[in-house]
């Protein structure tokens, strides 16, 4: 019997809207003659899809709040609607909306303006919904792939650009390979439980003890796939190449949405499915965190391409996030949630400045391209400064809050060594972020005219800039949100 209850519908609605708007964008583009100039209205439709989805998310939140925060399950236990899901879905939706705002002008400049772009962004967001909301391995897997395949195409969206081609190819080959590993792990979990839900997995894990070979094999392969998605070392190597080659707007989206959704999944898998197997995965995560911090921060030091530098820094951020999971207490998990929230705004903001400064003919990508920004465009320079300070984790910017929590969590759980390592790398990261600052404020440059930024870019910059400052100065409501998302 096919059933589709009201609860199912209620849970699914945001994703349903995203999917429908995505299809609508494709159809409308097809139905209307190509010679309608501009096609800015397609962006409008895509954004309204995100807004509707966001509104539904808000309704879901209200419903949960009214009913004592008891999670809803739907589709025979395939989806769970809890605050966790709403929180992370919210981050992905916001990042998608910001990316939409800046994409129009960017694509026009690249002469690759197609409706497919907006549809794919919506579909990627759609996929992320199932990654975040799903507790059934099949649902998660399909959602993950929907997002990943959308991203493969988005990364290669500049078809005439060799670097975009290359980035897409690399991402696709490694992504396909890592998917194979992830699903191999899932197949083993299925073998252990005879069921595809994470809850079933959780119920067999405790009985299996710490030296269970099959479970360990499953954990290792699954983690390989998941750490690949969040861009943690040593599975990070696609990230710098892909981030550099992809269209800048997509890089921003990839760096935020994909990482957030995958991290939510990692948390779900570890906290729900494998919470009993902590001794088995904790050393692995610790190793990945330390490696990510080391490789990300050290490799970023001497980069001259800003996108690539931000890619390495995002690897380092993955390391901090993993440290939050490793710390293993509430503080650490709240730290992870708030870190991801702040990370979304500051990262998109930093990429946004690059998009906004894009010149005709050549992209603004190297550190030298930002030279003397403080004199050419003081407001951009100031905004970039705020984002960079935030990425480095200097109070009172948003980036500090997440790092603060994670360090505190490490100190609380007595992992002093990791805390020291993390703090030292904060100092290192200051060095390379400030290389950019130096370039912006000290260096003379050959004046080059930039295009006037579109209103969308201005709006997105205002949002990210204000959010980065506001979360740093008034973090309390955001912390409460993050804590609530974890049911604390």
């Amino acid at each position, binding site marked *: 019997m096919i059933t589709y209850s009201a609860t199912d519908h209620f849970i699914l609605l945001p994703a349903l809207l995203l999917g429908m708007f995505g299809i609508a964008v494709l159809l409308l583009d097809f139905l209307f003659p190509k010679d309608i100039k501009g096609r800015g209205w397609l962006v409008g439709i895509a954004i309204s899809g995100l807004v509707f989805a966001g509104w539904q998310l808000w309704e879901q939140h209200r419903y949960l709040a009214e009913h004592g925060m008891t999670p809803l399950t739907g589709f025979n236990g395939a989806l769970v609607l809890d605050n966790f899901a709403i929180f992370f879905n919210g981050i992905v939706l916001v990042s998608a909306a910001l990316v939409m705002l800046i994409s129009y002008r960017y694509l026009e400049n690249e002469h690759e303006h197609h409706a497919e772009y907006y549809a794919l962004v919506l579909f990627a967001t759609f996929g992320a919904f199932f990654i975040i909301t799903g507790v059934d391995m099949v649902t998660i897997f399909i959602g993950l792939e929907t997002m990943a*395949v959308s991203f493969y195409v988005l990364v290669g969206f500049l078809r005439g650009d060799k*670097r975009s081609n290359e980035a897409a*190819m690399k991402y696709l080959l490694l992504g396909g*390979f890592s998917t*194979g590993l992830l*699903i*191999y792990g899932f197949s083993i979990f*299925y073998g252990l439980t005879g*069921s*595809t839900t994470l809850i079933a997995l959780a119920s067999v894990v405790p009985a299996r003890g710490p030296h269970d070979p099959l479970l360990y094999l499953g954990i290792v392969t699954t983690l390989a796939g998941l750490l690949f998605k969040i861009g943690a070392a040593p599975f990070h190597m696609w990230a710098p190449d892909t981030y550099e080659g992809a269209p800048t707007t997509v890089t921003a989206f990839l760096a935020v949405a994909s990482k957030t959704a995958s991290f939510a999944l990692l948390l779900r898998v570890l906290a729900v499915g494998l919470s009993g197997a902590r001794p088995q995965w904790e050393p692995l995560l610790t190793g990945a965190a330390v490696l990510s911090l080391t490789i990300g921060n050290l490799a970023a030091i001497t980069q001259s391409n800003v996108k690539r530098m931000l890619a390495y820094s995002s690897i380092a951020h993955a390391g901090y996030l993993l440290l939050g999971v490793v710390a293993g207490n509430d503080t650490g998990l709240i730290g992870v949630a708030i870190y991801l929230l702040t990370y979304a705004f500051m990262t998109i903001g930093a990429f946004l400045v690059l998009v906004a400064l894009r010149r005709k003919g050549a992209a603004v990508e190297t550190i030298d391209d930002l030279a003397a920004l403080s004199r050419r465009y003081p407001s951009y320079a100031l905004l970039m400064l705020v984002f960079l300070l935030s990425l480095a984790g200097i109070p009172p910017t948003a980036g500090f809050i997440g790092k603060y929590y994670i360090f505190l969590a490490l100190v609380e759980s007595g992992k002093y060594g990791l805390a020291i390592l993390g703090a030292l790398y904060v100092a290192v990261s200051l060095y390379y972020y400030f290389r950019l600052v130096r370039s912006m404020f000290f260096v003379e440059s050959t004046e080059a005219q930039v295009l006037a930024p579109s209103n969308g870019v201005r709006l997105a910059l205002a949002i990210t800039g204000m959010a980065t400052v506001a979360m740093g100065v008034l973090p309390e409501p955001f912390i409460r949100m993050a804590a609530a998302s974890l049911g604390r």
Partner: protein
Amino acid sequence: MITINHYLAVSATLLLIGTLGVLTRRNIVVILMSIELILNAVNVNLIAFSKYHNQVTGQVFAIFVIAVAVAEAAVGLGVLIALFRNKGSVQADEVDLLKW
């Protein structure tokens, strides 16, 4: 007597051969084929476990894996064509504009 061990062994072998292809073949088309092999290895696993637990859940899972394999192959080949058009080559180790 054929037990689940045999199936898991076949699956692991396919996985390793697929990985070998991914790691060593220069031709990107063949690398994509190797990824198909890996996904098939997973399917063998799933079917075997499905039988072992005497249910069809694993088979349903396998259908989804096939769907994913199809999607990945289609997009992979599309990207490959775009790459070929610009570069005139499908050798994996010649794709190295982005590095360090």
